[in-house]
């Protein structure tokens, strides 16, 4: 018995020791980083130099010969797996746009499916090179997640979907309703804000996956399903008889610019991705499509288009190709348009069939807000 008691005491003190050391480790981690944050200027310069010294992601992507693109597998219109196991959708095509621009091969993409809640961790840890997963650009994500958001690919807004027989025809009528949303997204906060703004006392339940929301929604556990309108439209299209059975209410109550993101502190890679996206917009503005890009390059005399496509521009001292030093091949825009298409083509391929209008996502000269800086 005496021995047993001793053994007991020993094991207890051991466990206390374990907790203490775990806590100490944790605190040590905090303390050391606090020390760093007190001298922000110094840290920043050193990190920049280390990143430069270590090389940009751009170099490692080129060396690896493929882009690791963080995406998803079950959002109709944006990214779904087809029967052949390939990713199809608007977001998937923008992954290919990046690959076409950087590597000259739209198929050189490794699609990595991510859970909503894991996407920033995947970006931070370097498991993916770029995140193209209908992610809203917000200040907090820009600041605290170490993400660097680039040219939005889709300007969206949050809305509400209800069953057509529920009798709701406006959000304001949904007093005391149960609203289902996806976990770890901006929709949770927007829905809470809208509820308190309109004094509606919503109960907001958040789920891991859209499949689970669908189950709860169809079983009548939720009155409304709130998400970005584009997503709701996509999900509705996949639902049997969806356009009659489900109604998307007219109100849109948030700004959701969906943008690709790369890791902070890597300007070269960020610029490469950004200009790949911008090229699709500029191509649409020029009227260049995947079908006519070859003939336009061969016949046009428009200097702007020749520069853009990386063709030789006749000048006073001989012909020259414009190289803006983006560390991209000079013909990257040609490859993007030739292999994937311009913005309008990508939109028409994946989102128009769902019943989505161009709306805000029209070119600036067609009533939208898509505007690419000049390529010169």
């Amino acid at each position, binding site marked *: 018995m005496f021995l047993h008691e001793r053994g007991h005491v020993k094991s207890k003190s051991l466990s206390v020791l374990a907790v203490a050391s775990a806590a100490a480790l944790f605190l040590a981690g905090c303390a050391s980083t606090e020390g760093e944050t007190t001298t922000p200027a110094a840290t920043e310069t050193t990190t920049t130099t280390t990143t430069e010294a270590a090389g940009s992601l751009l170099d490692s992507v080129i060396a690896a010969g493929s882009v690791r693109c963080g995406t998803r597998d079950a959002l109709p219109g944006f990214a779904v797996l087809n029967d052949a196991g390939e990713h199809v959708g608007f977001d998937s095509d923008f992954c290919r746009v990046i690959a076409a621009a950087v590597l000259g091969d739209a198929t050189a993409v490794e699609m990595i499916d991510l859970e909503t809640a894991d996407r920033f961790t995947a970006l*931070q840890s370097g498991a993916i090179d770029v995140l193209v997963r209908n992610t809203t650009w917000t200040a907090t994500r820009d600041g605290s997640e170490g993400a660097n958001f680039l040219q939005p690919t889709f300007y969206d807004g949050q809305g509400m979907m209800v069953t057509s027989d529920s009798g709701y025809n406006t959000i304001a009528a949904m007093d005391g309703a149960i609203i289902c949303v996806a976990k770890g997204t901006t929709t*949770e906060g927007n829905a809470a804000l809208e509820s308190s703004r309109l004094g509606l006392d919503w109960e907001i339940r958040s789920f891991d996956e859209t499949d689970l929301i669908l189950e709860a929604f169809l079983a009548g*556990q939720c009155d409304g399903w709130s998400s970005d309108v584009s997503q709701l439209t996509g999900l509705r299209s996949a639902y049997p008889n969806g356009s009659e059975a489900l109604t998307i209410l007219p109100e849109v109550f948030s700004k959701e610019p969906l943008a690709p993101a790369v890791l902070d502190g890597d300007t070269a890679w960020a610029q490469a991705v950004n200009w790949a996206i911008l090229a699709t917009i500029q191509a649409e503005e020029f009227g260049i499509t995947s079908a006519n890009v070859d003939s336009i390059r061969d016949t046009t005399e428009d200097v702007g288009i020749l520069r853009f496509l990386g063709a030789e521009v006749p000048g006073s001292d001989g012909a020259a190709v414009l190289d803006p030093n983006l560390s991209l091949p000079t013909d990257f825009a040609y490859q993007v348009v030739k292999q994937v298409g311009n913005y309008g083509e990508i939109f028409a391929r994946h989102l128009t069939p769902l019943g989505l209008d161009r709306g805000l996502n029209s070119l600036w000269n067609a009533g939208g807000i898509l505007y690419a800086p000049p390529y010169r």
Partner: protein
Amino acid sequence: MSPQLSTPSKVPFYRDIRTLKWALQVLALLAVFALLYWLYGNYQENVAKSSIQTDLRFLDNPANFTIPGNDLDQSQPVRDAFVEGFLNTLRVAFIGVALATILGTLIGIARLSKNFMVRTLGTVYVELVRNLPLLLLLTFMNLAVVLQAFPRIENAWLPLDLFVVSNRGIAIPWFIGSPAQLGIGILSAALIAFVVARVRIRQADKSGKQDRAWLFGIITFLVLVVLIWLLFGYGWELPYVDGRGTTGGLRLDPSFFALVASLVIYTSSHIAEIVRGSILAVSRGQGEAADAIALTGSQKMRLIILPQAFRIAMPALGNQYLNLIKNSSLGATISYFELTQIAQITVGNGSPAVPAFSLTLLVYLAISLVTSLIVNFFNRRLALVER
């Protein structure tokens, strides 16, 4: 025989088994530390590349989300959301441990019953439930039972008109008034009932009659609670269907119900086996002695067998309680807002992952260690003192 063979030559240190054992252990330890150091270094490097926070400042940011069945405002800090998640975890833990113990004990006894029907049902229950993965059981409970088998709110089930059962939750009658006041009242009633029971035991020890301590204690408790109820003028509030929700009473979240039900069903199958084994481990002579002094079957179980069985079962039960508490984190998969769900949501909304999950980790560790302390305390009280 040459003398060389009879005197063993000295073993060189690198072939000495004692040295080798030591060296191996030191090497293993070094390898573990090297791995941890490497991981920590990678973390530091990744953090330095981007502007990710590594401290607990995020706790002061606004939470930006709400919790079903709670008044938490979205402008309150993340800290408050964590506290609510912690409380929700404790709710599941308390109710789960209590129900699993009761159900498990009953089934454990049933498995030893002389009645064929009862015994077989007990065996089927244990063998069926114990061999299922808990996550699957939970998903089934949520998707198949709560979502599909419970009625929609439009045709909610109203047993006795006291409850409202639908796939939006179970509303039960609840009292009107201050919960803290009633809590203090019930606690003091329990205390007085305990004193009455002790007095009964002391008297019975002197007179040699049966103490009936439990009976007296429970009656005292009930009388006192009814008195307090009437004195302070508490009233019942019955829930009723109000449009697409319920009003009045207390509404239990559907995911809370699914989580507690799954945890209780799963854990009770393990507890039943522990109870059965412990009852069998009580020496046969104890039961025979009880028979010899003509105790009834229930007296034998209550006074002789179970007290000794629980002494044997206590450490194993403690493990099951720890399992139940830790398994409550699976609630995150069915949208129950316990600690893990809160951590996942806040990380998805901009809180840094490593500090947020480290904090969650430490909270679970603390809950588990406190539970161990409590179980060990009772274990020491129950343990036989041998000399």
